């Protein structure tokens, strides 16, 4: 192929890129809608009802925020496995501020966000300073955070109490419509930060090629910390909504906190594959919704929970992975 011809095609691709992308988007949306409609038919119309869709959306809010948090932190190439433990700690701190100190919603939200941000930024700072690989650092620090939560739990148990519970107050944030409004605000904020801000640019540059970005004058550690800060805010919101939704989050031990991020992690990986069609932040919300839907529709269809539901979820994740690789040849990693 001649140089000129190749350039011509690439130019066409550049100009036609928007159209191609639009076409891909429409196809994907149609495909998803079709699957949802088929599922609805199979479940005899109980799947797509206003209340059920609202419930699914409402249930996906926490995961969506966690996945958005991942988008900022994991995209820097830092797989932080302590996020589950951070969220448990943050939720409890928020709960204590809201209930025990009596700061109400402000305490809950600020407590969750502040502690998630502080812990996440501390993690990233320590990773940068100590140069410990993020994987192993996450495992180690998760133990530390879990232990701190556990010490609090034990102190409560000794008093015959459980860890802080919101009881019946401050539960509005975790319920529709508040949580859905928060979700949409969150998605828009994430989209803007990711695509239209300096933090987002630095994050994408460093995530793609640290060395070059550094030589081009991007402050690498600064970018990582900033991304961690933003990611921490999303994780904090996730903890606050979760705390408000569940009322109580019990600290766990033995790295069991990592299990709590398995499903969001699957959703994140799904989002990465979808990010070829949608913007990563939008994809994050969509994939959280899809994963929540899977469990919902399978329950409605009477598929045994805990067993076949999980098998089907695992299979869906793999199939999505395969499909996305088929549509594009280039391997990301």
């Amino acid at each position: 192929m001649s140089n000129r011809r190749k350039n011509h095609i690439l130019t066409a691709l550049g100009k036609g890129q928007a159209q191609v992308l639009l076409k891909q988007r429409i196809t994907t949306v149609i495909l998803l809608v079709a699957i949802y409609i088929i599922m609805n038919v199979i479940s005899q119309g109980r799947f797509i009802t206003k209340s059920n869709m609202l419930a699914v959306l409402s249930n996906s809010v926490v995961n969506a925020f966690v996945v958005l948090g991942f988008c900022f932190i994991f995209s820097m190439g830092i797989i932080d496995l302590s996020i589950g433990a951070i969220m448990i700690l943050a939720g409890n701190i928020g709960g204590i501020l809201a209930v025990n100190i009596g700061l109400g919603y402000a305490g809950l939200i600020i407590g969750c966000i502040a502690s998630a941000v502080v812990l996440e930024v501390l993690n990233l700072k320590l990773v940068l300073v100590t140069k410990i690989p993020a994987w192993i650092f996450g495992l180690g620090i998760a133990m530390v955070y879990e232990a701190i939560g556990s010490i609090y739990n034990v102190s409560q148990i000794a008093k015959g109490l459980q860890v802080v519970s919101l009881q019946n107050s401050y539960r509005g944030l975790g319920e529709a419509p508040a949580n859905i409004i928060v979700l949409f605000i969150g998605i828009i904020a994430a989209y803007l930060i990711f695509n239209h801000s300096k933090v987002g640019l630095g994050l994408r540059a460093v995530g793609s090629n640290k060395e070059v970005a550094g030589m081009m004058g991007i402050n690498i550690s600064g970018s990582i910390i900033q991304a961690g800060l933003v990611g921490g805010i999303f994780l904090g919101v996730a903890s606050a909504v979760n705390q408000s939704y569940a009322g109580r989050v019990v600290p766990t031990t033995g790295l069991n906190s990592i299990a709590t991020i398995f499903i969001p992690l699957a959703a994140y990986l799904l989002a990465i594959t979808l990010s070829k069609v949608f913007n990563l932040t939008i994809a994050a919300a969509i994939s959280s919704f899809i994963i929540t839907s899977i469990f919902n529709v399978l329950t409605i269809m009477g598929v045994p929970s805990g067993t076949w539901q999980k098998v089907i979820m695992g299979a869906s994740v793999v199939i999505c992975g395969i499909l996305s690789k088929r549509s594009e040849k280039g391997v990301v990693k």
Partner: protein
Amino acid sequence: MDKKIIFRAENMKKYFGATHANDNVSIALPKGHIRGLIGENGSGKSTLISMIAGIREKDSGTMYLNGKSYEPKNSLDAGKNGIGTVVQELGLVDGLPVGMNLFLGRTEKFEKMRILDINALYKKAEAVFKEWGFSDISVKQLTGTLSVEQKKVVELVRALSFHPDLLILDEITQALSLNNREKLIGIISQLKKRGKAILLVTHDIEEMVAITDVITIMRDGKIVAERDSDKTTPDEIKRLMVGRDLNGTYYREDKEPSYGEEIKLSAVQLCEEHFHNISFELHKGEILGICGLSDSGIHELAEALFAVRKIDSGCVKLPKKNITINTPKQAMDMNMGYVPKDRDKQALMVNDSIENNVSLAAVELVKEHFGFLSPGKRSELSGKVIERLMIKTKGPNQIISGLSGGNRQKVNLGRWIVQNKDILILDCPTRGVDIGVKSYIYEMMIDSKKRGISIVLISDELPEIIGMCDRLMIMKDGEVVKTLERSTGLTEEAIIEVMI
């Protein structure tokens, strides 16, 4: 020198461990001046450039730009000060669109309250590309999807977008097609007219002599000479670079084709996206040259010959053994060796030892019973490579990244040579190596030929092809347009005419 000096560096020093990469280097560049910088690999020219470009910190020395002291913190800072660079170490961020790469690190003017105005950025980027005549690249395209040449163009435009007083170009011309090369030369002379300075590094001595005003020659971390380009010859420069006389030419001296009757390898109707209907036969003791422009399909053909690249139709056969080569492993088992084009990305594990890199190509040779890869044999073999190719190293356990480019290439080539392979496919074996190593590689090739080894030499360097090959095939747009026999009458001009 009555012209106004734009840039001056004095007594620059840089150590890497115990190596004195730059030892008291001083250089001054006046207005409207094109300077060539040349030297063997490891002579210190890249180090000097990277210090000027702000990529590496200097150990000592002072730099002045337009009369003011100049201390760049990074490449961006250098750019803001008016020094634009296209350097090998620097690249682009694949995960960002072209436009963002252009302005990465200096997006302030598109920001309001830390929010980026993306559209304004793209618009500006498009204007910059247009300004320098490269409007065929879409600024919204993801950089990772660009070709190597296009990436170089983006880097060039980024350097130019700083409106630099000094433009530094490190081995950029090799990556460019003829068309873009001409454009570049146009830009350079335009800048010269505007009174800017240009510092140019290339291994193509002829090109350098043609373009530049003055050539500075470096050796062992020191500047050994400066020559006016119109008063010097490529031969003199070569001599200065190496520090001794190279006896005339380092190519083959015979001017007649010479090879055996036996057909070692035959390609039959090879078809792929990048080339069509390629057929040829490789004889015993023959050096078959395949030349063409970078995108004419020559490199892809090389990959196909070694079965690294899947072909759509046709086959690569070994007539004597009546075997079709389908996998690289089979090719290796059938005594073929392959030196790919990109040494550091395709051929060598740069963070691994010489021993492992040598063994990688000779696994079957060092294998004993039960799949045992004998450490003794491995170190013996790599010792052999080091010895035979005179690689400057501490020993077989030396990590490749600690070697100079030339020595890396010696490892790359040597690991096949010591195995006495029947057929060698060499894709640009002398790319990016200095003259000393280059002539050594040619010697090895001639020696191999004498021993009856057949070589396919793929190259876009015409003197090398003319100087070394028994037969040469010229490719254009994925097709063989002409096959020529070795003769005294072969000239570069004649070949170029066919190539383009």
